[in-house]
């Protein structure tokens, strides 16, 4: 760690991992509710568990991005953070808002929560992933603005690099597109249309810039490859990402009341979305192969390579599976979407945040890399989580294909609930894979507490 203010990232990373644990626990609860419908009912109904599962994911990734930015930007700008106190202050505000929101979800019926929090004044609640009460949404905006102010001022007073500028562009985009969560037109077509401007343009647009910048930063650090080379590839990747991702929004506009040409624009451009991810994979492996130093943090390198591969599989390949409009006609609203969601979020965003944590946390804690034993434990976490999420994805894909077959292709179509009864086996297998994932997460967290021992040959 070169600058003292970078240490503020530790708070964000710690909270991110804590929320990660909450996300996985609620994922396991709802995974079980798929097969044991009344598990924990009425204490934690399925819709509440789902809300906590998805919202916790989003918030902990945001925490991870912020922590990554607070670590990365001072080092890139070669100056202390503009205001470490502001960074710490917004951390506590953000954490408190997240905790209160989760408690609200768990303790108050959702309709009551909406009434309590002023949803009548400006109705924004009740939409998937944007369920947060109005005060939370406003809090997110305030925290984001203060965060962006802090980061932007740091970059302005220091060295400007391609990596920090791409990161900044991604973070500003993140804040700007979140504003569409306040726009909730009565017309349901328009509602969905702009809802995607937050949801899609986050994960298949501006978040990819953040991902690219973080990955490029860690690759420079662990490989020692020339900055010019890495930045050049970063430019190629983000250009391809933005062109395919922005127009690719059309793959959400197939049959929701939007003009027919979206079927073409959406199909063609989103079919090309795997390309930037493929280039990213090539980029990561190429840079590691051309490395000019042997960085002692092997775990961070593993996470970086893993991000390339799993983002390509999850976001690229599993996205392509159901992105063409004639295919999506059959697969829409099946577990194939859930399969893609799991592998894409894990492969792209979970892994890139864990890459950054893996690289930065040892440095924040005063060492170039963790002990051999801690790294081995961390790699156990890597492999258990990665392999189990692949199995979760495969089982959900199988359930989705069976669903399409029984309900939508069959000569004697079954009802929705009858198809679900036929796919129970896959849901059980998914739940078991989820338990293995939890094991991987425990190993990962354990690695932070491994007692330091001299690395053994």
């Amino acid at each position, binding site marked *: 760690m070169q600058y003292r203010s970078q240490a503020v990232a530790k708070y964000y990373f710690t909270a991110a991992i804590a929320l990660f644990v909450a996300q996985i626990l609620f994922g396991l609860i709802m995974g079980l509710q798929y097969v044991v419908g009344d598990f924990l009912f009425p204490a934690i109904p399925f819709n509440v568990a789902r809300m906590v599962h998805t919202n916790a994911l989003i918030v902990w990734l945001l925490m991870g991005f912020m922590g990554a930015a607070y670590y990365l930007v001072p080092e890139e700008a070669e100056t202390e953070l503009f205001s470490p106190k502001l960074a710490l202050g917004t951390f506590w505000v953000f954490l408190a808002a997240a905790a209160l929101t989760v408690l609200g979800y768990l303790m108050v019926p959702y309709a009551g929560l909406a009434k309590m929090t002023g949803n009548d004044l400006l109705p924004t609640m009740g939409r998937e992933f944007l369920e947060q009460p109005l005060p939370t949404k406003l809090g997110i905006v305030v925290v984001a603005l203060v965060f962006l102010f802090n980061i932007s001022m740091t970059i302005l007073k220091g060295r400007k690099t391609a990596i920090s500028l791409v990161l900044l562009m991604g973070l500003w985009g993140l804040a700007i597109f979140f504003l569409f969560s306040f726009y909730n037109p009565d017309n349901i077509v328009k509602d969905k249309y702009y809802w995607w401007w937050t949801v899609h343009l986050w994960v298949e647009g501006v978040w990819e810039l953040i991902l690219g910048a973080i990955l490029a930063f860690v690759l420079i650090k662990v490989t*020692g490859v*020339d900055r010019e080379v890495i930045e*050049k*590839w970063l*430019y*190629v990747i983000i*250009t*391809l990402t933005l*062109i*395919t991702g922005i127009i690719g929004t059309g793959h959400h506009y197939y049959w929701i009341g939007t*003009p*027919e*040409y979206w079927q*073409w*624009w959406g*199909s*063609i*451009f989103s*079919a*090309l979305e795997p*390309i930037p991810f493929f*280039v990213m994979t090539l980029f990561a492996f190429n840079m590691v192969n*051309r490395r*000019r*130093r042997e960085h002692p943090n092997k775990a961070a390198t593993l996470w970086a390579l893993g991000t390339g591969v799993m983002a390509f599989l999850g976001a690229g390949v599993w996205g392509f599976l159901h992105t063409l409009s004639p295919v999506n006609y059959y697969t829409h609203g099946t577990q194939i979407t859930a399969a893609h969601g799991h592998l894409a979020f894990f492969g792209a965003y979970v892994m890139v945040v864990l890459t950054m944590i893996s690289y930065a946390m040892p440095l924040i804690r005063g060492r170039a890399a963790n002990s051999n034993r801690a790294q081995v434990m961390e790699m156990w976490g890597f492999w258990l989580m990665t392999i189990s999420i692949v199995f979760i994805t495969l089982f959900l894909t199988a359930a989705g294909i069976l669903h399409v077959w029984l309900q939508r292709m069959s000569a004697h179509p079954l009802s929705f609930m009858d198809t679900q009864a036929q796919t129970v086996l896959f849901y059980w297998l998914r739940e078991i894979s989820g338990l293995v994932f939890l094991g991987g997460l425990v190993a990962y967290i354990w690695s932070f507490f491994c007692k330091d021992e001299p690395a053994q040959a």
Partner: protein
Amino acid sequence: MTEVISNTQQPAKGPVVVSIPTKAHYPPGDLAIWVFILAELLAFGVFFAAYAITRTNHLALFNEMQLNLDRRSGAINTGLLITASWCVARAVAAIKENNASTSARWLGAGILAGLGFIVIKLVEYHDKLALGINLASNIFYMFYLSLTFFHFMHVLLGLAILGIVWLKTRRGGYSAQEHSGMETGASYWHMVDLVWVILFPLVYVIHSPTGL
């Protein structure tokens, strides 16, 4: 084995000076632009394939609607783009002989031809929009507008790149020894040209009652 290791163990600090022999350097320009060019060609390729498949399914409509396109302006634009590519190729040849001012003039001529394409295309769009034609008019116009506009945006990007290369050439930024940046820009421009050379006959000209 030892050779491989010694190659990878260059000193980590300081810029690595690599002299690139001009003739042996292939593909010209930066490798990254070729990754980009291939991705672009793939995007257009998918679009062309979609056009071809849709055309076979709506042959009568496509044949009828195609007659409404302004083939003369399309032909002039083809000439302009090919001319622009020729100018850019002359510019690269000139810089290889260390003649920067000639090179800059050729680049300027190429940019002018490209701007001519933009003007004619805008007139063509204006005429179509004045008739109330839009993406939702029918499947042929959807493809016509989408394909040509997607290409139009590439012409703009190509012109921006050529503009930057032109400025750098005028400032003496390239020489017979080091002109990789110009070759990078020229390669991109030739891709823009190449796509149009396929797009123009495909959408404006090829006309058959059988669909083949």
